[in-house]
């Protein structure tokens, strides 16, 4: 299970659910930026890294996986340019060629002589911050379940879909447990779909990462999200461990009161899980196979 080879004939699916409720306009941690702003940066970074993973350095982008972004707040939206209800997820090559814009930003890099220099780089933008309305998590999960079910039907031998839910709050349209269970009950020959929940906090303390039981969780909402989260497959647990997280047997893909770095790390793990070169790359150099 969770070992299917990922290639262009047998791509994987990464589906990101982004909370766009009003509370996402609050600051995230000590960054001074809103949760929505920082999360948009993190998701754009994820998508940019995913594109570069599949780029060969010319016009080619190998379609090792398909990706979708569902925003939920005042509305349920398919956030990627070119996506619509008939095509809710897009091959990564199409994502690469259709950002909303490409910003020029300055990147600080080593100058090779002990100093730091700033060099311009292209930063593609697919997602802009949106903060509006309530947190219809049930509807978001139901949307995701339809996408995942249809995708699994078309890709029965692929690595199972990975669904990552990024939220700062409590569902406002009811208990999402059944909808979450519906996502996790579909799958491919290689295993059931994986649902991971990343809860963002305005607080700078109380972060819980990859728990293996609900015992350490302080409130009912946290326990609820924990129960809805899939256990990390072995290679993802290994990758998280390689990034310095304490991982125990049964650790789930769940962050609570998560800080920015933890979310970025987790998005890296999720993205690389669906590329052929895989998760071990997080711990070393370039693979040659």
């Amino acid at each position, binding site marked *: 299970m969770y070992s299917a080879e990922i290639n262009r*004939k047998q791509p994987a699916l990464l589906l990101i659910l982004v909370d766009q409720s009003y509370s996402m306009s609050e600051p995230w941690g000590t960054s001074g930026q809103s949760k929505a702003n920082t999360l948009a940066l993190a998701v754009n970074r994820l998508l940019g890294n995913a594109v570069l993973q599949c780029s*060969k350095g*010319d016009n080619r982008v190998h379609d090792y996986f398909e990706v979708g972004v569902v925003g939920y707040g005042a509305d349920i939206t398919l956030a990627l340019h070119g996506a619509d209800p008939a095509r809710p997820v897009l091959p990564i090559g199409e994502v690469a060629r259709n950002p909303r814009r490409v910003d020029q930003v300055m990147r600080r890099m080593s100058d090779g002589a002990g100093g730091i220099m700033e060099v311009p780089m292209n930063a593609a933008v697919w997602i802009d911050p949106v903060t509006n309305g309530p947190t219809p998590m049930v509807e978001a999960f139901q949307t995701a379940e339809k996408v995942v079910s249809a995708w699994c039907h078309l890709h029965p031998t692929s690595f199972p879909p990975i669904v990552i839910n990024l939220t700062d709050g409590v569902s406002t349209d009811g208990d999402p447990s059944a909808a979450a269970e519906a996502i996790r009950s579909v799958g491919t020959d290689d295993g059931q779909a994986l649902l991971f929940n990343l809860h963002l906090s305005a607080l700078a303390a109380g972060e819980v990462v990859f728990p293996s039981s609900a015992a350490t969780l302080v409130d009912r909402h946290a326990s609820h999200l924990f129960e809805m989260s899939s256990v990390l497959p072995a290679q993802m647990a290994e990758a998280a461990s390689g990034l310095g997280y304490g991982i125990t047997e049964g650790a789930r893909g769940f962050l609570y009161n998560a800080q920015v770095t933890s979310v970025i790390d987790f998005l890296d793990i999720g993205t690389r899980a669906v590329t*052929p070169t895989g998760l071990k790359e997080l711990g070393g150099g370039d*693979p040659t196979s």
Partner: protein
Amino acid sequence: MSTRSTRTNGAVFRATTRTTGKRDGLPHENEDSVSVNAEEGWFAVSDGASTAARSEVWSGLLTRAFTRGEDPFDPVTTARLGSEWWEAVFAPDLPWFAHEKLVRGSAATLVGLRLSGHSYEATAIGDSCLFHIREGALLLAAPLDGSARFSRFTPLLGTGVDGGHAPDDVWSGRGEFVDGDLFLLATDAVSKRLLRHHEEHGTLWPVCDHVSDDEVFAEFVERERDRGLDNDDSTVCVVRT
């Protein structure tokens, strides 16, 4: 690819090179390279890193440099080859993602062999390997000498100024050979399979018997993929003395 014979410093060599790409890939997506200088008795094989930019160009530059008599590990040579790589792959009208990928550079393994008289010198980085074979017996496997030593990560020679590797990552060796000996240079999938077969059976995996033409080699590789050969670009340079 080719079979060429030559006589150098009193020794006769016959070199055969073959390569075939991944099962799901197109021929031009093969990122391995092989180069032979039959006149001098110099041979090289390289495997471009799959996550690196235009690594088929970089592996080609490395193998050709080696068989021109250059040392790709010399920092000045590495830097010059890196510049050649950039000039070969960069174009101002590339899409944003290609530009960003190229900025991150390229990388590849390399194994090179030079024969002179009845002596050889070899150098390598990564998991492309050299095998020295005499009458069916494996005398040398380097830089990796066991199938368990292969992983998804291996030292690589990069396009950066310092090549992006530690000095200890570069293996060098030398020795003697007798007429009739065989040298095999191979990228990682073939190397790993050969070593595993040798560990399990004590005999040589017969890849060198299936290089008579491209089709024979490709069919052999395809058959062996159903028996455990990794689905990867597969390249060999067989040097018969």
